[in-house]
C-alpha cells in the first residue's frame, strides 16, 4: 500500500493520456458522467473526488458502456455479400475513479459475455482496460451494496484501488498484477500503520453509512409469489421507460437492428412493451406487471440459478434516477409478505402504500 500525492497521480495520468485513453468522471451542466477525456483538454475536465465525506458525487452512468457499447456496428449485409466491420485499433485504456459497485457490475457482465459463447469485443475491451477504483467515503441514501456481497471499500474487479485521504492524497493498493505494475510506475511513499488504521476507520464509517438493506427471498418464496397480485400493485407507477435498465451496471439486454444494410447492436430494456412481442402479435409479457416482475425475478432469482450471484450490485441508480422513484429495495423486501397466488385476491387497486 502506498501514499500518493495528487501531483504524482496527475503526472501519471497526463502521461497516460498522451498515448492512451482515460475514462473518468466529468461534470456536464451540474451532473457527473463517466466520459472519455479529450486529450486536447488534458485533465481539465476530470472531477477529482472530494475528501470531504459530505460531498456526494455519483456519476449518472456506470462504466458499462465502455465494455458493452450503447450502439455497436456489427457488419454490413448487402444483397451481394457480408462485409464485417474493420476493427479500429484499441489504445490501452484506463477507467478512473470507479466505485466498487460499478466495478462489481463488470464481474456480472463477465458471466454473460465471457461465457460459453464469448463476445470478442467485450473480452478485448476488458483486456485493454485498467480499472482504477475509488473507495466510497460517503454512500448516499439509495445505496445498498453491502447486502449484495459488495461494499464501499471492496476491490472486486479493480486493478488498483484508491482511497481519498485528507490533503488531496490517496492511499493506493495494487489488487491485480496489472494494478501492481501501475503502482510501481506511480511510486509514492510506502504506507505505514497510521495509514492502515485510517483506512480501516474510513471503511467502517463508510459501511455504517449504508442505510438500506435488501433482503432477497429464497427461490421457493419467490416462486410461490409469482402469480401474486403484488406485482400489479408495485408496478402500477412504472412508466416502462429504460432508465433503470440503461443506467444499471449489470443490465445487458440488447436488440439487433438494421440501419440500411448495416446491422447494429443496441441497448434494449425488458421494460419495453415491444420486448417480447413476436411478428404475428404473440406476446407473453403484454402487461406492465409481467414485465416489472420479470425484471425483479431475472435480477434476483433466475440469474443466480445460472451464475451464483444476483444481477444487482446495489448502486441505487435505478431508484435514484427513476422519474417516479420506484424503489427496488422496498419492492424486493416486500415479496416475502406478499399474498401468494390463490389467496383471496386483494382488490386490484390496493395501493402499495398500505403495507407500510
Amino acid at each position, binding site marked *: 500500500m502506498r501514499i500518493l500525492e495528487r501531483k504524482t497521480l496527475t503526472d501519471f495520468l497526463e502521461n497516460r493520456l498522451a498515448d492512451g485513453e482515460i475514462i473518468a468522471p466529468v461534470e456536464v451542466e451540474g451532473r457527473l458522467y463517466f466520459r472519455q477525456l479529450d486529450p486536447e483538454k488534458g485533465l481539465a475536465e476530470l472531477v477529482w473526488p472530494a475528501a470531504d465525506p459530505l460531498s456526494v458525487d455519483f456519476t449518472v452512468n456506470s462504466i458499462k458502456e465502455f465494455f458493452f457499447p450503447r450502439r455497436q456496428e456489427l457488419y454490413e449485409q448487402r444483397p451481394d455479400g457480408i462485409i464485417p466491420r474493420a476493427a479500429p485499433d484499441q489504445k490501452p485504456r484506463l477507467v478512473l475513479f470507479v466505485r466498487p459497485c460499478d466495478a462489481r457490475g463488470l464481474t456480472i457482465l463477465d458471466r454473460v459475455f465471457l461465457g460459453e459463447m464469448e463476445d470478442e469485443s467485450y473480452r478485448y475491451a476488458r483486456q485493454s482496460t485498467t480499472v482504477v477504483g475509488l473507495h466510497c467515503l460517503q454512500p448516499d441514501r439509495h445505496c445498498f451494496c453491502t447486502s449484495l456481497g459488495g461494499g464501499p471499500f471492496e476491490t472486486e474487479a479493480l486493478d488498483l484501488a484508491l482511497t481519498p485521504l485528507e490533503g488531496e492524497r490517496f492511499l493506493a493498493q495494487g489488487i491485480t498484477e496489472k494494478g501492481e505494475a501501475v503502482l510501481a510506475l506511480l511510486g509514492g511513499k510506502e504506507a505505514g500503520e497510521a495509514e492502515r488504521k485510517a483506512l480501516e476507520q474510513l471503511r467502517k464509517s463508510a459501511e455504517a453509512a449504508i442505510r438500506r438493506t435488501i433482503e432477497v427471498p429464497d427461490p421457493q418464496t419467490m416462486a410461490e409469489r409469482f402469480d401474486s397480485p403484488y406485482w*400489479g400493485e408495485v408496478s402500477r407507477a412504472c412508466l416502462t421507460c429504460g432508465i433503470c435498465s440503461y*443506467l444499471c451496471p449489470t443490465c445487458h439486454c440488447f436488440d439487433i437492428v438494421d440501419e440500411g444494410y448495416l446491422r447494429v447492436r443496441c441497448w434494449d430494456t425488458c421494460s419495453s412493451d*415491444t420486448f417480447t412481442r413476436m411478428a404475428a402479435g404473440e406476446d407473453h409479457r403484454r402487461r406492465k406487471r409481467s414485465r416489472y416482475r420479470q425484471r425483479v425475478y431475472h435480477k434476483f432469482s433466475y440469474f443466480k440459478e445460472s451464475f451464483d450471484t444476483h444481477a444487482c450490485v446495489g448502486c441505487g441508480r435505478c431508484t435514484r434516477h427513476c422519474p417516479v422513484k420506484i424503489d427496488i429495495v422496498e419492492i424486493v423486501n416486500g415479496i416475502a409478505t406478499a399474498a401468494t397466488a390463490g389467496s383471496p385476491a386483494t382488490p386490484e387497486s390496493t395501493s402499495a402504500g398500505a403495507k407500510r
Partner: protein
Amino acid sequence: MKDSALRKAEAIAQKAASERQKVADRQKASERQKAALRKTAADLLAQKAVDLVIGYGRSSGGDVVPLFVSRVEEAQALEWNQHCTYNLVCYLTDPEVVGSLERKEKSKAGKAETRAKDADKAGNARPAAGKVAIVVKGCDLKSLVVLQSENQVQRERLTVIALTCPGVADETGRLLAKCEGCPPDVYNPRGELCDLVVGEPVQRPGGESTGKQSGGPLSDPENQDSTYCDVEEIDVLNPAERRELWDGYFARCLRCYACRNVCPLCYCKECVFDQHDPRWVSPAAAVASNRSFHLIRAYHLAGRCVDCGECERACPVGIPLRRINRKAARVVEESFHFRAGLDPEAKSPLVAFANEDPQEFIE
C-alpha cells in the same frame, strides 16, 4: 449615526422575523391543505363516489411517489409537499392503472367494460374501468384539459382535485424553473376546469406582477408569455451553432423514452418509434436517430404540449427538453394565437383545420 445603524439592525431583525413568520404560516397552510386533501379523498372513497384516487405518497426510502388509493383508510397516506413534482395525468391513459377511460362510441364502450372484468391467467382482476379521482396541480390540470379535447378521457368518470400550489422543488429544495412565471390562474386553479379545489389561494412572490392571465386573449400584448427567453437564447444562434448545441445534447440521449413515457400527451398505443414494420428511426442511441426522435416528438406535441416540464425532469442526462417544446409552442402561439391546455373544447390548431387558419406560405 448610531441611531440609523440601530434602526437598520432593527429593520433587518424585523424582516427576518416576518420571513420566519411567513414560512411558519405557509407551513401551517400546507398542513391544512394536506389534511383537507386526505379528508376529501377519504370522503370520496367512503361515499363510493370514486373507486380509485391517484395522488402522491411516500416510499419507505423517503421519496415522493405516485400513490393509488382505493381504501378509505389508505387516504391518510396521501402526501402534498414541495417535492410533489410529478404530473399524475400520465396515468389516466394507462389502461393498466385505470382501465380504459377513452371516449368511445356507445357500442364499443360496452366491450371495454366487459374486457375490464376479465382476469389474467393468474386470476388477478384487470383494473376496473370505474370512477377515478386525480390530484393535480395547475400545470398538470392543463394537460388533462388537452386530453379532454382529444377524447382521451371520459370526463364524467373523473373527479379532478386541483391543489393551489406555491411551486414545487427539486431534491435540493430549489424551485423548478417551470414554476417561475407561473400565472396566478394556474397556481390557483380555476374552478371551471376541475371538480374540487383544495387549499387556500396562494400568494407567490412576483405572481401579481406577471399580470398575465393565461386564460386571457393571446392577441393582447399584455398576455404575451414574456418568459420565452430560454427559447430566444437559442433563436439568436445561427443554424450551425444551433446544430452543434443540440447535437451535443442528443449525443447524451440514451433513448430511454422516459420523456415520452412520462408525458401525459404521448399516449399512442403504438408509438411510431416502436414500430418495426417499417422501422422509421433506428432505436440505437446515436446522434442522428436521437435527433430524429426528439424533433419528431416535438412536432407531435406542437400545439398540444402545456409545458408541464416532466420530460425535462425525467431525463436522466439533463437534456433541456422544455426548450424544444416551448419553441414549438411559441411558433404555434404566434401563428395561431393558441395556447394549449386552457379550454377543453378547443382543438389544437395542428390537429384541427379551420378555413381562417393563416396561410401566408401559400402565394
